[in-house]
């Protein structure tokens, strides 16, 4: 029973990381209809930036904050320099460019920091929290709390502020947003910035568990895609619930299905993506694409 409970909690922590990267995917998708295939690689670069800042002498927490701010700016710049100019290009063009960006960022990381793995310290102490007979590592609990707080901040931004309302309006009906005086490009710029900052968070939380290396986000982005697909790809709540579900299912299957084990766990993600698209293409929370005439 304790094993089961701790698998669930570990799954939630993994799931929180998937959720933040899935949210990054959903944010850019909702605002511009484009799936940013390079999101994981951008997150990887954000984690490397933390390592680099620390190598230059910055303590961990300030390094993390600087990296998140820089990532926000980089995401906004990506929108302004590549995505916006391509807004009238065909989908295939945009996808090709973003996959090209994926490869370019991956090589860039290898070029700057080499392919040897580097340790990135965890944000959380190596302690265990004891609740009666149940113990959970500070890292697991910390990840859940940090992602939870970030989600709360996002919720407050979108539900209680004017700019949050304008961002939702610009993403949902850009033509009408212009007619109430909202600058749609600025809102999309902020959206892509937030996406990159969320991606950075996922990269910074993952790196201490898998060590820094240019391919460290490969697995995570697949799980994030599974989470976003399961949630419905255009739903913020869906991305969070999808992320947590994927994390828990992945852990339970890895523990209790002997022939899958840790090595084949990634199959779970692919099965979830395939199954969702087959059975309920709009996901758990996605909007049905209905055109009213």
């Amino acid at each position: 029973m304790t094993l089961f409970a701790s698998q669930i909690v570990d799954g939630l922590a993994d799931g929180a990381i998937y959720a933040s990267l899935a949210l990054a995917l959903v944010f850019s998708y909702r605002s511009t209809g484009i799936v940013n295939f390079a999101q994981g690689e951008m997150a990887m670069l954000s984690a490397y930036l933390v390592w680099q800042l620390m190598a230059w002498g910055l303590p961990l927490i300030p390094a993390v904050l600087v990296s998140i701010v820089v990532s926000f700016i980089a995401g906004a710049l990506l929108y302004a320099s590549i995505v916006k100019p391509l807004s009238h290009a065909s989908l295939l063009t945009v996808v090709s460019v973003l996959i090209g960006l994926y490869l370019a960022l991956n090589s860039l990381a290898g070029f700057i920091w080499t392919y040897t793995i580097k340790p990135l310290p965890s944000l959380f102490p190596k302690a265990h929290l004891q609740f009666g007979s149940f113990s959970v590592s500070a890292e697991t609990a910390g990840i859940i709390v940090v992602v939870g707080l970030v989600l709360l901040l996002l919720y407050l931004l979108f539900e209680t502020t004017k700019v949050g309302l304008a961002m939702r309006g610009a993403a949902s009906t850009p033509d009408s947003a212009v007619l109430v005086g909202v600058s749609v490009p600025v809102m999309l710029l902020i959206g892509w910035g937030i996406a990159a900052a969320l991606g950075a968070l996922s990269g910074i939380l993952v790196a201490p568990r898998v060590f820094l290396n240019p391919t460290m986000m490969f697995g995570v982005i697949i799980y994030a895609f599974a989470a976003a697909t399961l949630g419905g790809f255009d739903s913020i709540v869906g991305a969070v619930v999808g992320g947590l579900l994927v994390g828990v299912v992945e852990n339970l299957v890895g523990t209790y299905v002997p022939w899958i084990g840790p090595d084949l766990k990634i199959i779970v993600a692919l099965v979830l993506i395939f199954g969702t698209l087959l059975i309920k293409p709009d996901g758990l929370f996605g909007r049905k694409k209905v055109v009213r005439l």
Partner: protein
Amino acid sequence: MSLLSLRQIRAGYDARSVLHDIELDVEERQIQVVLGANGAGKTTLLRAISGTIARQGTIMFGGMPIDRLSARKIVAAGIAHVPQGRGTFADLTVDENIRLGAYLRTAAETRQDRERWLTFFPRLSERLSQQAGSLSGGEQQMLAITRALMLRPRLLLLDEPSLGLAPIITQGLFRTLAAIREEAGMTMLIVEQSANLALEVADSGVVLESGQIVLRDSAQSLAGNDEVRRIYLGYE
């Protein structure tokens, strides 16, 4: 001086020009209606004014040239456009739609205006937390108009507010528009196919044909004009 003056306005889509040398004046506190068949250029005319398509010529609004301003700047100058098909934010709630309409206004103005306009559209106040996409066609049109009024515009552009609505609903809507004009002194330019109801509340009107204004008169004379009656009012 007219609130809005159009001189030699040409506009269209890509290579196809739709409007040819339009001259139009809208007087302050008046309701002017633009009649015309499908494809005559009515929607294009409103889009040219609100800057949502490229246009050539001179557009003066309140003494200021606006023909080179972006759509967003024209909104800020005080022209609210209710597009055809209403253009509400379907994913947002009714209340959020209304608040977003006041994006350029202060919080105090928003609270004040929200109360004021909801008295004209009581149905909306019962549905504030509903998603706009779940409203009926008539309610969505009311919401689109309320959202536009929240901007505190000096000119309201309405593109076929009757589209898809039952005649009885359209009639109520036009009465409310007339009441809003009385109370707030709002100037309106309304594009309509359902001409008889529009002419009842309008002061003046023009008839648009193939991108040109072929007739301009008071609403009363237009409603009595044989040709207008035959073509746009459906009388033989």
